[in-house]
């Protein structure tokens, strides 16, 4: 067994941190690490938090962490912020809102840059969840990049997903745009201390009357919270528990997990296949010649693709 995996299983937080780095960096040991972590995963409950920038995702993660800690549960937090497509750099600032838990050994917080991923999570987020899961965290909060209308990765990653909205941030048309409506298991109108929270909640509710999500038996509740004074947090936790119970009893939970596994296997096969292909095709040196022919319009890209794939023949 990899020394780091052993240390992680023994509860060494430095090993957890190191493993996440190696996974993120696509290090040579990555596959071995993930293989050995896998048997120890599947126990944590993964709670996704998504919403536009400044909606209060980090503050909500902070409030939820406090609440769950009081119940004696251990928490992992993965907070994703955008990587600049121009420089590859990132400023990861989600910890600012979570300083209260900085010294609590029952809370492990990790910030990640998207590093080129577009779906609201980093490519390595799912794998980092596995590390925290194997580390024995009861609940893993995953906070997406603040984008708002297209970060659907979280749905394929979390057991329960909450979409965070604010009062006064656009009419009801914003809420019925594709995506947001379908990915929410729970809606949260955060900053409910501000004017317009009731109106916002009513509008979302009215939209839900017209139909919701992929599951006819679960109507996403619309919760109102304020992280300033903690209003609505116990009710939100209650809503999460209810969704969890529903998901388990209705088979949704097992179904989502099965789909996630299938997607992971498919992605991994495709990834390896790609590597194998370019290893084989690259070695033959035929590619450059074919491309030259294409440049002179003697061959088309489709014929070339077929010829390259012929390395798998026989």
């Amino acid at each position: 067994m990899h020394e780091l995996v052993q240390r992680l299983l023994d509860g060494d937080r430095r090993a957890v941190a190191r493993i996440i780095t190696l996974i993120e960096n696509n290090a040579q040991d990555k596959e071995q690490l993930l293989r050995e972590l896998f048997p120890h995963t599947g126990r944590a409950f993964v709670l996704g938090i998504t919403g536009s920038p400044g909606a209060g995702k980090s503050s909500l993660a902070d409030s939820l962490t406090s609440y769950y800690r009081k119940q004696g549960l251990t928490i992992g937090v993965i907070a994703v912020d955008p990587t600049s497509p121009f420089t590859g750099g990132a400023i990861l600032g989600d910890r600012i809102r979570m300083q209260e838990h900085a010294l609590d050994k029952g809370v492990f917080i990790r910030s990640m840059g998207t590093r080129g991923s577009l779906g609201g999570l980093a490519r390595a987020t799912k794998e980092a969840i596995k590390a925290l899961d194997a580390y024995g965290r009861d609940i893993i909060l995953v906070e997406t990049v603040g984008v708002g209308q297209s970060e659907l990765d979280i749905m394929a990653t979390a057991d329960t997903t909450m979409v965070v909205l604010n009062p006064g941030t656009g009419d009801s048309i914003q809420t019925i745009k594709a995506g947001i409506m379908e990915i929410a298991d729970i809606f949260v109108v955060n900053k409910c201390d501000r004017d317009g929270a009731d109106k916002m909640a009513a509008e979302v509710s009215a939209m839900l009357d017209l139909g919701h999500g992929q599951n006819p038996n679960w109507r996403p509740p619309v919760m109102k919270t304020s992280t300033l004074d903690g209003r609505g947090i116990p009710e939100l936790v209650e809503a999460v528990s209810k969704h969890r119970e529903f998901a388990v009893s209705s088979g949704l939970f097992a179904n989502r997990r099965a789909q996630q596994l299938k997607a992971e296997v498919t992605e991994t096969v495709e990834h390896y296949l790609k590597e194998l292909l370019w290893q084989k095709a690259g070695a033959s040196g035929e590619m450059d010649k074919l491309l030259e022919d294409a440049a002179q319009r003697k061959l088309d890209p489709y014929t070339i693709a077929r010829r390259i794939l012929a390395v798998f023949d026989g």
Partner: protein
Amino acid sequence: MEEHKIRVLVAKPGLDGHDRGAKVIARAFRDAGMEVIYTGLHQTPEQIVEAAIQEDVDVVGMSVLSGAHMTLFPRVKELLDENGADNIILMGGGTIPEEDIRELTEKGYAKALFTPGANTDDIVAWIRGVVQ
């Protein structure tokens, strides 16, 4: 293909509330392609070290304008060592007199210290040089 991205924790320890310098430097690191974890104001040495460990950073950069550098740098270094995180490079900047810089760097409490007016390109180049 392995890609090592430099991760830096930019921290503001202690009581001074001036974080403009820290933000300028955080931005310079970002523009240099690094991942910068920014934790906000009024951090204790314990909080800084715990964040550095969980985030598995290569470098901790502390901005100290309060005059408490002779306490803060040795304390953070001590905590890093105690937690087996002595591989993390501790550096910083702020209004720190020449003789204090000499003492802190000679005793190994900080690998390098930069003062107001330092060129951000030089700091970036220095980090790239020490993180292998």
